[in-house]
């Protein structure tokens, strides 16, 4: 991570150079977008929520403490926004669904023809997406941060504002939950 660069950008922002925020977006947009897609399973929602994440970050960056990492702070905003989005009001959710549909992320992104190898990876991606969708948002967040974003337990604890013990137990529970759903791909024959 470019921690020193982040601190420099934040200081410039706090001094009043608000335009530097675009550099922060450019640096972290892919990671935040990736997290949101795996949390929500839908490209349209992911783009909205990633956008909301950065808008919230802009509004609160003045209060950011430089002893924390910028990316874990951004991840925290993104995860909370995703969880809040899942709890959106009933009417809003049905209107949104009819407007965008709940297509599979994999279907939306890759329409390329599938040779054998691609087909296998496609199947795994589908299975992962389905399995993640079944987990509760908290367990999903922890497993995405670990397995897809590659964060350490300490970074996850920092991101989610929980203890390392809680992270350990959530990761174990999430893996136990995924075990049945992914057994076709994981169990030894």
């Amino acid at each position, binding site marked *: 991570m470019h921690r020193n660069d982040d601190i420099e950008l934040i200081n410039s922002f706090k001094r009043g150079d608000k335009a530097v*925020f675009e550099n922060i977006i*450019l640096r972290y947009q892919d990671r935040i*977008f990736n997290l949101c897609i795996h949390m929500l399973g839908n490209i349209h929602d992911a783009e909205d929520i*990633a*956008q909301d994440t950065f*808008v919230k970050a802009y509004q609160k960056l003045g209060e950011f403490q430089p002893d924390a990492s910028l990316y874990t702070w951004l991840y925290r905003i993104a995860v909370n926004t995703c969880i809040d989005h899942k709890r959106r009001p009933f009417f809003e959710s049905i209107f949104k669904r009819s407007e965008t549909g709940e297509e599979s992320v994999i279907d939306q992104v890759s329409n390329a023809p599938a040779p054998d190898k691609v087909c296998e990876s496609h199947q*795994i991606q589908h299975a992962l997406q389905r399995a993640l969708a079944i987990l509760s948002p908290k367990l999903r967040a922890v497993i995405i941060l670990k397995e897809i974003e590659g964060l350490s337990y300490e970074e996850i604890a920092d991101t989610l504002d929980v203890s390392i013990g809680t992270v350990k137990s959530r990761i174990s529970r999430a*893996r136990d939950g995924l075990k049945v759903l992914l057994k076709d791909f994981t169990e030894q024959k």
Partner: protein
Amino acid sequence: MNCLKTHKLISPYIDGELKVTDRKAFESHMKSCRACSIAVENARNQHNLFAYAKQFKAPYGFSTRVMADIASEKTTGFSLPLLLTRFAEVVVLFVIIFSGIISGGFLAGNLMPEKLSSVTSSLSLDVFDPAPPDSLGGVYLSMTEVRDEK
């Protein structure tokens, strides 16, 4: 180390988050316990599966859209118009519901004096003769009356 404790440590072991002493104890248990080593292998396979997870990139022009969003948020302040819009939506909803209730009540009230009474009277059973004397029912009734008299 027993199997129960080993099971709890599978995830930290796979993620490389175990202390050296715990890792050694874990590995020595694995050598002697086939069930635990299979469980670890399955968990490792699951972990490896995530290598297939697609890595998405933000769409083109994302940062520009966010900056435009921020600029529009700044001009609208704490979004009073949005608040007023929501309030107006709620008011309109209540107006529709109450006008429905009131107009329904009004229509029913209008029917009451004349039309409703004619409707209720037309539904009265008194207008029907249950068994005219010539009909089969009428003959049956007269026969039962004669029998009762006897």
